[in-house]
């Protein structure tokens, strides 16, 4: 049985590099139908999503299919979960069907970590609550490498609802391992001061202009202004102070790129002009999602 991929934090830099290298081999190079590989033939990959997702789930499914694996997709609505089954029972039922790996997204931080302590089947974390989203960080790193050629020494600004972002945490851990300077930026209620010490190389900024100044990468996060547990922030107020506009990019490095894990809220955290600009890597990120997930699946299934 392979090893689970639960998060970026516990990984060694070399493991990450190896996956990023493999992902390059799987990138789409245009022209004609993609060859279907047989590397993972006869292996079943289950995607189990307790939260809605279009891009991550389809990306994993395409990746598994390209590797020749069989896929089974389960979403929480319509499954036995909504009939009151416990998480452990749901997983045990799936495990009895002998999947080679379970790709799982869950709204509770640590849900895959809890499960992996009690079962042998490797789990690939496709996002757990507000904790980690490791494959997103890998595809982001692949995208930055494609465009800028390195991670070390880059200034990466991550802007938005840091407190509730698993994308931010995974990216912080990955970029930190590669020696990037990470600037986190957002309104104080969404940017806990403790974020500055979760990994080396992180600084906090509450002013977006300072955050994007001299940045090589500007990574925007999706903002959900209506959260159950926190007082709402007015949308207009948010965009005024933390929405990324073309003017901000003049403060960044000339080659700076803009990233966003999607789905984007135009006019909320990012202006349409930025989202559709030449600097925007949003669609490259989606494209790299498949390549990176092929590399991850290959590692987990064949190790």
């Amino acid at each position, binding site marked *: 049985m392979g090893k689970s991929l639960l998060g970026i934090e516990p990984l060694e830099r070399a493991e990450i590099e190896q996956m990023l290298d493999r992902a390059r081999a799987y990138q789409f190079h245009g022209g004609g139908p993609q060859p279907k590989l047989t590397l993972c033939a006869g292996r079943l990959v289950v995607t189990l999503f307790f939260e809605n997702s279009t891009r991550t789930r389809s990306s994993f499914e395409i990746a598994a299919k390209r590797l020749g694996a069989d896929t089974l997709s389960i979403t929480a609505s319509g499954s036995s979960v909504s009939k009151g089954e416990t998480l452990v029972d749901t997983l045990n039922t799936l495990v009895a069907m002998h999947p080679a790996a379970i790709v799982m997204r869950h709204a509770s931080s640590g849900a895959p970590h809890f499960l992996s302590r009690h079962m042998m089947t490797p789990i690939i974390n496709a996002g757990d*609550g507000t904790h980690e989203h490791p494959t997103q960080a890998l595809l982001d790193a692949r995208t930055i490498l494609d465009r800028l050629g390195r991670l070390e020494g880059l200034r990466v600004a991550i802007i938005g609802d840091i407190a509730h972002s698993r994308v931010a945490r995974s990216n912080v851990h990955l970029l930190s391992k590669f020696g990037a300077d990470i600037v986190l930026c957002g309104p104080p209620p969404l940017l806990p001061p*403790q974020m500055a010490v979760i990994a080396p190389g992180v600084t906090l900024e509450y002013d977006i202009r300072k955050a994007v100044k001299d940045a090589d990468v500007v990574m925007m996060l999706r903002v959900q202004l209506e959260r159950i547990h926190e007082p709402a922030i007015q949308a207009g107020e948010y965009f005024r102070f933390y929405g990324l506009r073309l003017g901000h990019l003049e403060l960044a490095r000339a080659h700076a790129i803009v990233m966003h894990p999607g789905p984007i809220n135009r006019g909320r955290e990012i202006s349409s002009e930025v989202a559709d600009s030449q600097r925007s890597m949003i669609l490259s990120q989606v494209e790299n999602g498949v390549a990176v997930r092929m590399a991850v699946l290959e590692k987990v299934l064949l190790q």
Partner: protein
Amino acid sequence: MKLLIRNGRIICPASGLDGVGDLLIEDGRIAGSGQDLSAPGADVIDATGLVVAPGFIDIHVHLREPGFEHAETIATGSRAAAAGGFTTVCCMPNTRPVNDSGMVTTYILETASRVSPIRVCPIGAITKGSEGEELASIGTMAAAGAVAISDDGRPVMNSRVMRRAMEVAREVGIPVIDHCEDLNLTAGGDMHECVDSVNLGLRPIPSAAEDVMVARDIILAEMTGVRFHVAHISTKNSVAMVAYAKQRGLPVTSEVTPHHIALHTGHMKPYDSNYKMKPPLRCATDIDAILGGIASGAIDCIATDHAPHAGDDKFQEFEKCPFGITGLETALGISLEVLVHSGRISLPKMIAMLTSEPARVIGWKGEQARGALKPGYLGDVTIFHPEYPWTFDVTKSQSKSRNSPFSGRTFQGGPIITIVGGTEVWRAQGY
């Protein structure tokens, strides 16, 4: 009926006793202590090499009955208490139905009188259903035998309701015990707000959630004159505020749990629900402040907050798991380790925190007097070994539940014989 305990190290902090001698219990009450007592016809226990202390009192446990018998019952919880050296426990009212009436109080007392080897003293709710709105039948519960009131776990957010409850409790003559937590600041949090909670993506419980309610309650206690007791104190600011209240002569007391002195966030296994409780495990600096508060007297007693939960309930996503861990059987081992063997406080002082001090918080008097080895007091005695090594195995716990982070931990010293009203109710294996 006589019981003679011979040749033990008798320690009774309330009467200043600490020396090797004999202790006699007659007709269920302490008769006296001294050298070479003769008591013809008495049963004899040889306590050579052991400490003979007043029976331990835990003023904060959850016995789960009525309503949650799958997690614990009065019978199993009180057996766990006896195994931990406790002769009296005060059980919190968050049962189903909530103990907010004389009827439920009576039910608990009558059940305990049939099934419990030790003394069970119910704590009544502050508000009806612990919903924080209407006052519970405080006087009726007290008349039925409730020894304090608390909405433990569902603290009263409305300060005016708390004020009125305190006024009633003052007249009835029982203390108000508050689980000090501002639920709006907690906002469904699962872990102490710190670097780890942020990194693990767990919703935070800031120290301020406790601090602001301790401040409020101290202010209201001064206003109403009630005896006010802070349950399971866990933050450095709370300790400072209780110390300040005491310095001003207010009738304010506090307790700490064994786990809040033994563990901090750095000890947690990520997403392991055996480390999930309220208040949450705090930081090393909070433990330092708590240990300081114990030494200075700001913290009066040790109470376990024994909170059994059925295995299934604790075996799920971290944020779905209920709060709390069991604690009765490990309390003495932890207290010895963290407080006495470390040299922080003396053995008599630790015993006081488990006996005379909790007795003072509740205020048992006359026929109910306990917590000391004085003639006429209830004949409750805990005999323990102060040093022998033993390892806690949660699968052998007397409790019905298994939610403890201390399984596998080896302690130096633990309970040997528990005596209630002159009757031996529990003895460690091998003795």
